[in-house]
């Protein structure tokens, strides 16, 4: 067991070291020498001057990078000796790498309509003097803004707590990844309720301890999704003497037997599921099954 723990600790320590290494290793240099600062701050150009399609774009798949023609509307592209203004490798000039698979469902238009400004998401981009990859907003920025402004997807209405199960099942699939729950929520979000301790009765409503048998019988909820171990139930049922429905009058009659005899003969394991630990007390010391 100790060896296993050591392995886990080693893996996690390795992960943290890996973080440190990759943090710097992931930065790449671009061949382009473009300065946002020079264009936006010093020459007071709007973002839309170059990114002309951004305001009307409704999909993250759209290519919103300016092309050479956009540059040509201000710069003299005919003067070939001036390639070096933008390109560090004038022998082999290349475009900015295309951004792919970045939130296909994202709509710039929707955000512009809601009066979100460019640098609300692309923060401090106007001060950048070099072209770097990863000038795209991080997920945390989206989550922060949507959380602060209480902007939720249309589906997340007031009844969503009762209806989210359908979405969770169907949208976890890659074909609808753009609507997937894990676009915003990590697994821990689900586990807070679905695998929580319910120590403060947040997960289930108040009084649920007294009404849950109807749910268990009526199958609205699958208890076994979370509670897979019998120890979870036995502790409470044993303390409160809540017994299976067949433990009714006539179940155990001293010196005669009762209906439990045939049940036990049919399925002793069923009895054992509760009475394994206390069989000696319940069967022998009660005066019935004395050795």
């Amino acid at each position: 067991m100790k060896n296993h723990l050591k392995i886990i600790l080693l893996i996690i320590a390795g992960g943290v070291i890996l973080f440190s290494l990759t943090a710097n290793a992931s930065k790449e240099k671009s061949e382009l020498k473009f300065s946002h600062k020079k264009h936006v701050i010093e020459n007071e150009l709007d973002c839309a001057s170059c990114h002309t399609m951004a305001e009307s774009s409704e999909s993250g798949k759209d290519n919103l990078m300016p092309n050479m023609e956009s540059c040509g509307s201000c710069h003299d592209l005919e003067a070939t000796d001036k390639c070096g203004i933008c390109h560090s490798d004038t022998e082999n000039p290349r475009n900015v790498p295309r951004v792919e698979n970045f939130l296909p469902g994202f709509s710039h238009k929707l955000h512009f309509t809601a009066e979100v400004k460019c640098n609300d998401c692309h923060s401090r981009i106007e001060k950048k003097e070099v072209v770097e990859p990863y000038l795209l907003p991080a997920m945390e920025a989206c989550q922060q803004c949507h959380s602060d402004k209480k902007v939720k997807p249309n589906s997340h209405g007031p009844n969503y707590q009762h209806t989210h199960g359908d979405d969770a099942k169907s949208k976890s699939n890659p074909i609808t990844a753009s609507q997937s729950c894990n676009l915003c929520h990590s697994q821990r979000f689900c586990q807070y309720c679905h695998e929580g301790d319910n120590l403060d009765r947040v997960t289930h409503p108040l009084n649920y301890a007294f009404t849950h048998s109807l749910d268990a019988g009526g199958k609205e909820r699958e208890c076994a999704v979370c509670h897979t171990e019998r120890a979870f139930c036995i502790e409470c049922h044993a303390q409160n003497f809540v017994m299976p429905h067949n433990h009714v009058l006539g179940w155990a009659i001293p010196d005669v037997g009762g209906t439990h005899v045939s049940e036990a003969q049919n399925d002793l394991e069923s009895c054992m599921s509760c009475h394994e630990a206390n069989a000696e007390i319940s069967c022998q010391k009660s005066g019935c099954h004395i050795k």
Partner: protein
Amino acid sequence: MKKTILFFAALLTLLFISSSLAQVNYSGWWQSNLYLWENPDDAQYYNFYQGLQFRLSPQNYSNLYLNTYFRVAYRDDLDEMQEKVHNLYLNWNLADNYRLRVGRQFIYQGVINGTMDAVSLSGRFAKNLQLQAVIGTEAPFTREFELVDWDNGNLLGAYASYRLPWSNSLEVSYFQKQRKSDSEEKSELYWQQLGSAFLGTIQQKVNYYFRMDYNLLTESYQTMRGRLSYLANRWTVSAEYNSQRPRIYEDSFFNIFVVNPYNQLRLAGNYRMQKYEFGLQLLQTVYDVHAYYVLFKDDNDLRLVGTFGHQKFGTLGLVLQNGYGGDNLGYFADIRYEFLPNITARLYNSYFNYERTSTNISEDALAFLVGLGYRYKKVLLLEGELQQSSNNLYKNDTRGLVKLTFLFGN
């Protein structure tokens, strides 16, 4: 126990040091709860527990991150802690198409396989083919920070998803679990399931999902499920058919009560009108009851749930149930309202009158909750609740809850 606390303390320290030295992004929360109540026997009880969850990833490289959710509880004894590590894993999205995840994680592919201490690798190995493989041991059900021996519970599984034309997809999965019981020398299979699903969407409005799971050990189907839903701007309508045999675990509480296979039909509809939302759900369950086990008055159960919600104020609901488990009639109201900036009031009230078929005794359950929440900027959330309930066991059960949440991140 000390080992776990020390480990997480060290991890947190490492987190803050590394964030300043190595450009690390981190976010999460730390929560302290104190829950107090007095039982009718005048004995006072408390739960005190703390939760920590965070996600840690290098700046500019969010493909690699460490994720955890960890809780410690003290129940009426400050000297006795109960630890629970719900998840603790390292996730690495290798290139664009592959993902490696190592550590305690929740395994779900159509069927819940539970929390595992496992290694899972998934990837898009061809343009339309995604594969995933999992190997690991079952996490202790107490969620303690230790590993279960391989023979005492292990899982092997694989999952494949193939993308078909017109936004359709076909899935196949295989999962097996082995465990050694006290009387056995070697671990044996107790769970072996083959699953398949066909699902798709039409113009992002119609979703369909058909699934079947086959139990190779009992050589019978475990689950058959079909669901069709329509999502319009204001309307959501869904119909679902579910036929299921109980998933009887070796250590399941289903061994205690008789649980029958059942067939279920669920119809649900939601309608949104500006800030209002109306919902209706009808659930009909028909049990495959063996005559030997007829303990209830009927072999079917009908449940009707109606809800009315307002985006700003909360939800009101009505529940009507009749049949197999018993009769139930009740309502619930869950109201939340931000009456001052950053201060939210919460009011919960429910009343249920129910009669279990087995007892034929009509019982009432009444619950009431009033609470206040205060949010200080983006870092602190203080909540207090007073809860009161009465039911067939307790005429008056009053409880107090104080919850402090600290949100951190850079």
